[in-house]
């Protein structure tokens, strides 16, 4: 009891004494963790956008809604003819599967999504070609399949996939660069705040050591301070991320439906997981930064 009270009192006093460094540490940690969180969120958004093309799918043949198994035989025959020639494999995505694809594709545009039902959604054949680079062959196939009865439309990956995955790679590389640089800065700062705090209290620490306080007793309030900074940074980042994600999701609804952005949102609960990860990450850098500092500078 006495110990706990002592610890919180010392931690509080220490923060009060050096507010600028603490504030700067928290800001840097928060921005770093925010960019980290946004990187995860953006990645997830892009993944949504690309989800229907997973597994090497390069062509999707959309089938008119309501086309029964008998009516799809023609299409499957046509696909079967190419099996082993230009197509490696294909799979049928039925109504349930197509609806779940739509859930992700129109995550940011609930109005459009709500117009798609079991009755009117086109089902899909997802086609994996033998050689994805042979775009001409795929285009030829598309033109042939478009002629088939009950085919609603045919889409090729190259039209979309290429741009998006390039964008994804570009964005993640540089946001990752930014958050790592800032994370290094935040760790150094927390380390430094603790070092400064310990230096400011070197007289206390000297006396504590002389009267026989254990190293852990001396160390703990400082580690608590670092932990607090990391967690505060993480919490601020989580809230900011939640806010930005919300604004973006609201913004995307207002975009034109054909802008290709409607899948670029995260509303499936992943944002909460990221929020938690961000706070834990903050706690981690806080503890590591302060722990190293406290251990290193205990011999003041």
């Amino acid at each position, binding site marked *: 009891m006495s110990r706990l009270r*002592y610890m919180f009192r010392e931690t509080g006093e220490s923060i009060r004494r050096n507010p600028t460094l603490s504030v700067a540490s928290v800001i840097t940690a928060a921005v770093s963790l925010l960019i980290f969180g946004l990187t995860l969120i953006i990645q997830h958004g892009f993944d949504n956008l690309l989800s229907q093309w997973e597994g090497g799918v390069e062509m999707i043949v959309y089938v008119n809604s309501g086309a029964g198994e008998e009516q799809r035989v023609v299409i499957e025959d046509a696909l079967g003819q190419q099996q082993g020639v230009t197509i490696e494999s294909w799979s049928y995505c039925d109504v349930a599967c197509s609806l779940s694809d739509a859930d992700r594709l129109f995550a940011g545009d609930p109005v459009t999504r709500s117009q798609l039902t079991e009755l009117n959604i086109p089902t899909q054949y997802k086609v994996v070609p033998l050689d994805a680079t042979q775009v001409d062959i795929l285009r030829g196939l598309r033109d042939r399949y478009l002629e088939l009865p009950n085919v609603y439309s045919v889409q090729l990956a190259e039209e979309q996939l290429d741009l998006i995955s390039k964008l994804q790679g570009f964005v993640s590389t540089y946001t990752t660069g930014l958050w790592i640089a800032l994370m290094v800065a935040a760790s150094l700062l927390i380390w430094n705040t603790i070092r400064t705090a310990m230096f400011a209290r070197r*007289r206390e620490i000297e006396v504590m050591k*002389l*009267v*026989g306080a254990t190293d852990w*007793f001396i160390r703990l309030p400082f580690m608590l301070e670092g932990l607090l900074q990391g967690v505060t940074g993480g919490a601020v980042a989580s809230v900011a991320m939640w806010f930005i994600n919300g604004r973006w999701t609201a913004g995307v609804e207002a975009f034109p439906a054909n802008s290709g952005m409607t899948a670029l949102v995260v509303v499936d609960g992943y944002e909460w997981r990221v929020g938690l990860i961000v706070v834990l990450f903050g706690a981690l850098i806080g503890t590591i930064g302060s722990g190293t500092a406290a251990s290193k500078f205990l011999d003041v």
Partner: protein
Amino acid sequence: MIRLENVTKRYSSEVVALDDVSFEVPKGEFVFLVGPSGSGKSTLLRLINRQERPEEGSVWVAGRDIVDMPNNRIPQLRRNIGNIFQDYKLLLNKTVFENIAFALEVIGQPQHVISQQVPAVIDLVGLSGKEDRFPHQLSGGEQQRVSIARAFVNRPLILVADEPTGNLDPSTGEGIMRLLDRINGTGTTVVMATHDRRIVDAMRRRVVQLDRGVIVRDQERGVYQ
């Protein structure tokens, strides 16, 4: 209580602070360490509470060889030794009471022990009524009394004092010596380094004289020389 056996302490290859020093302090004794500046008095005191480790020899405190004591045992050792310094080493942002209580708090003593022992020791050093003053509101002699109270509040076996009267005028210094004498009277072993001829001559206790790291005199009821 304290025993040094052939202790050599070097700060570097040239600076030999103590050179093959052996000496023993029985329980309850009062010992003056004297000698010119740089003769190794402070170093010897720092060996006793393991602020320094000797390169050679062994140091026994309260029946234990402390030279190879593992680090996690040192706090326990230091709880048996009270330290007093020339510059008091008080915490300037804490009151008299808090300064003394601090020494108990940080070794995890519960509140009821603190609220019982601190007033008792404040009374002992004659600072009753000044509990709530800050160090800067006290004279040098009073500050030194606070530092003695802090060193003694835990009832250690040994008090180690490094020139405790160095910053005080003669009559204030005498008051401090009377206090240390009283504490010694309760059975606490006291080892004190000093430059103060008058005090040594007046007290007439055992005097150990160092010179360039070597004990050159060890005299019962000695004088400063």
